[in-house]
């Protein structure tokens, strides 16, 4: 093993801490695990890592935590990282939702996967302190046929200021290289591109640093006022969950002129998106498809696939910000709904999820 790397800075308990904020499917868990392994096996440090995920298994918020410390220091803390030295943000979509920038201070190095400029990113995430490293990890991953997490791994290594690219290479060869030897070169290329493209941008604002997001959020119902036994009379209340993070770029678009009102979309939609009401079709009384409540849509595109007349087609969500044929769910009696992000608060339960296998068959 290599001689121990000296950590340039640690918190009051002796730890150098990292937090990765991501959406399931981008490989943040694996990245976190590899960073832990990097510290423990290749930098001569003591290390720990663990991950948590949100209420959904795919397309849901994921957090990964890594602690490094000197080899002789005991790792005693088991709670989440609140004030990270490194914050890795894997997706721009997380801006303004769960407090992904919690605990960021002037010494925090923030590595973001974005095609935007540092100025745009600071504005988008309202970042008030730290040093920013903007990395277009998606583009680099596509160029190298690698994955976003490999580019981010390289960029994070660079941002630490004390991890050599060669240690990351060794790590990758020993882990991914042994499991997927045919993929190693392209992944090393991804790591290198991340390492090389990460350049610091110092954030100078007079705004206060970000508060650490410690503790567990409190709900309306506590021990004094909740119905006994955990019984829940608040029917249909999942409707206020914000599902936009589940969508992977695409939404179904509706072309009413082509619709034959067969109702197949209604049978295949897992999320009750389609709004049918009584009307007339071909001179007869019939249930007619009026449109979609996009708030309920997770973008699975089952409906596009099943539609016999191409009245439903896939479109890029960002090209259709103002959604045509948006029909509000008629069953809703609430005049207003504050859509809430569900956040990451469960643990990754198994190694199978850690692999974050994707339907398109992507690995690593």
């Amino acid at each position, binding site marked *: 093993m290599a001689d121990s790397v000296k950590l340039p800075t640690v918190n009051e308990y002796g730890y150098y801490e990292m937090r990765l904020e991501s959406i399931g499917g981008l490989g943040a868990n694996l990245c976190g695990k590899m960073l832990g392994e990097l510290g423990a096996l290749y930098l001569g440090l003591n290390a720990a890592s663990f991950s948590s995920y949100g209420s959904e298994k795919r397309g849901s918020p994921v957090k990964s935590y890594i602690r490094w410390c000197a080899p002789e220091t005991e790792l005693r803390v*088991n709670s989440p990282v609140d004030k990270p030295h490194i914050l890795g943000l894997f997706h721009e979509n997380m801006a303004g939702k769960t407090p992904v920038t919690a605990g960021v201070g002037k010494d925090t190095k923030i590595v973001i996967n974005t095609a935007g400029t540092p100025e745009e990113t600071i504005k988008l995430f309202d970042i008030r302190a730290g040093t920013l490293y903007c990395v277009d990890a998606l583009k680099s991953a596509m160029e190298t046929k690698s994955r976003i997490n490999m580019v981010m791994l390289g960029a994070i290594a660079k941002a630490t200021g004390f991890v050599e690219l060669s240690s990351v290479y060794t790590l990758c060869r020993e882990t991914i290289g042994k499991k997927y030897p045919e993929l190693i070169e392209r992944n090393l290329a991804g790591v290198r591109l991340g390492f090389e493209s990460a350049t610091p941008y110092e954030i100078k604002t007079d705004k206060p640093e970000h508060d650490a997001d410690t503790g*567990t959020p*409190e709900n309306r119902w506590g021990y004094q006022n909740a119905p006994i036994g955990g019984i829940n009379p608040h029917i249909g209340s*999942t409707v*206020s969950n914000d599902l936009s993070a589940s969508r992977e770029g695409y939404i179904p678009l509706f072309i009413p002129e082509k619709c034959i009102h067969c109702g197949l979309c209604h049978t295949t939609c*897992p999320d009750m998106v389609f709004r049918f009401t009584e009307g007339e079709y071909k001179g007869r009384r019939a249930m007619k498809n009026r449109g979609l409540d996009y708030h309920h849509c997770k973008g699975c595109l089952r409906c596009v696939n099943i539609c016999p007349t191409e009245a439903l087609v896939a479109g890029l969500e960002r090209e259709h910000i103002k959604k045509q044929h948006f029909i509000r769910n008629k069953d809703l009696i609430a005049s207003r*709904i504050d859509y809430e992000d569900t956040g990451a608060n469960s643990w990754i339960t198994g*190694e199978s999820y850690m692999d974050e296998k994707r*339907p398109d068959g992507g690995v690593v």
Partner: protein
Amino acid sequence: MVKQRVMFESGNELAAYAAKQINYHVMGYYPITPSTQIAEQLDVYKAEGGHDTTLMPAEGEHSAAGICYGAAAGGGRVFNATSANGLLYALEQLPVQSGTRFPMVLNVACRTVSGPLDIKGDHSDIMYTLNTGWIILFANDPQAVYDFNICALKIAERAMLPAIVAFDGFFTSHQKRKCEVIEDDAEVKRFLGDYKPEFTALDVENPVTIGSYMNEPDLINNKYRLHLAMEKSRGIIDEVFAEYAAFTGRSYSQTAGYMTEDAEVVLFLLGSSYHTAKTAVDKLRGEGAKVGVFTANILRPFPADMLYTHCKNAKTIIIGDRQDSYGAGGGNMTLEIKAMLQEKACTARVLSRIYGLGGLDFYVEDAISLLREGFGGDAPDFDYIGKYPGNPESELITYFNPVTQEEATPKLTETSFDEEANKLIVKGVRVNESTRMPMRIAPGHGACPGCGIPVNVNLLLKGIEGNVVLLFQTGCGMVVTTGYPKTAFRVPYIHNLFQNGAATLSGLVEVYSRLVSRGEMPDRDITFVMVSGDGGMDIGMGSALGTAIRNNGLIIFEYDNGGYMNTGYQLSYSTPKGAKSSTSHVGKHQAGKDFFHKDMPMIMAGTHLPYLATVAESNPSDFLRKAVKAKYYAQNRGTVYMRALSACPLNWGDKPERERQVIEAGVDCCYFPLFEIENGITTITYNPEEKNKKIPVTDWLKMMGRTKHLADERYSELVKNIQDETDRRWTRLKALHDSPVL
């Protein structure tokens, strides 16, 4: 000292690594979070050829414990892992194992016991084992999980008692840490030595009776002997720890303490929190406060004397319990430490605190404030930390009205009973018209994009007019709809654990019938529907069969996605043969799942229930028609069983938008034929052969990531085997269809 190497692994992975090195004869198990990874990782090692332990997935923890008992009675080295309600389901078997004195090792990744259901860590499960006669080691970090797994077997075999290695679920089971393992597996075996029990059930030359029927003059002697063995194990534990220290350099004691010698205030904590509190101690010591923290590495036998050495000089002893013995004035550690202090005539003040329930994080700051409380005179003797009263000021928005009986009765179909054919005739099923039915489940549930569960449940409910009362067994369908403080349901709903859903719902059905017949409530046209995954129909098979045999009036609806998807896709009995799952890996030494998928409809048919049907979303009219029939039969004739082939894009490894085609292919290859058995008459309702749509089973298997490896030439024998079995079952079904006598 033995040669070791550094790894970066979690507690679960290290438990599995130790088990691989030991090369147990048999592991009987049933997956439950957070212990599941142990069996998963052992399966990975097995596929690679790392060991040849027989890994036996039981249909529930009770059977898993039974498998272990049988294997132990045969003189084998035996291993198991479980958590929470899985442990409680197996609990009955634990005293059998210890009372008849067969050693084995059980890992418990500690998790809170339901209900309400919570998958995260606390110590409410492990405390149920205190009276079972098992030695209990508690590991407070991943390294100790590895070390204790090796020590536990040696202790167990020397004491002739079974042993548990417990550790914190998630905090220890899932946190990856730098750790050391013994490099050469043979060295582990050398350390353990051979196991030659005096009695086994396989010794035909010296036959013995295991499990005597025993009356009162004798049972007390058996139990006294157990007590003596437990007392003797104190010395054995010390011996084995000493041998292990000489072997690896890592030494353990039955208890551990930090800065307790001169401490005025000491804190007792079990598990990973002990380490967290050491940091708090350092901080408070820096401020001049004389504080310390101590813990137990062994819960049985309880190391009372050694624990006393850590608190004998303290003025205040604070005991943190990650569980409560409700009504006893503290959790079990409080009770046991108080008993020890009374024995020592100790007069220190004792404060008891319940903390960290259901996985609530324990921060350094929490430990600091706990220790500070010890210096205040007005601290209550007992309290919960981390609780909150709630905020009645925050607005509670009503999103929906309940679904009314009138709304849910649009009279879309007409039914009449054909007495001669002994069949219900359903007219007017139209997919388009079914959109009139109000949705009983609201959007915003957390199912993965493209998930088949809501698709199938909605299709079923569209066919059931009037009121419905739902019961979901544990599984994805339940977890994604009822995350507190939200719920997706707009109709009455109950969850019960998946061994017991059918029985629970049959109780509800019968109380409804009694209430109506006594005039205590009006007849509300209620159809009772139980929804379960195929996992729930493994562990809950007995309960479902019992309900169908009693013929209680309800629908058992199974969404069959062929795996335990909620816990990360372990194999179920319905997983296709050859499929890879996290407990049936594909490797040089293993080709995925090694037995055929369970034919649950035919098992249910054996109860001679009035109606059963298989359905698929790819045939929505057929599905709706069968749902209408299901309502009729559940309300008028008795138990109905329905099974839908249900997509799981995450674990099937296919694209969410293509699921209906995948389902269709599953039907067209006759792996999942659509049929019904109505009053004993079998009818195939969709015959792909007649439509000229029948395809080979590989055409379906290659559509999914979990089975596409089977298209490779090297699995041709296995695929032929699957095709033959599929054809055999299909041919048999056609014979049933052709003959009303069958």
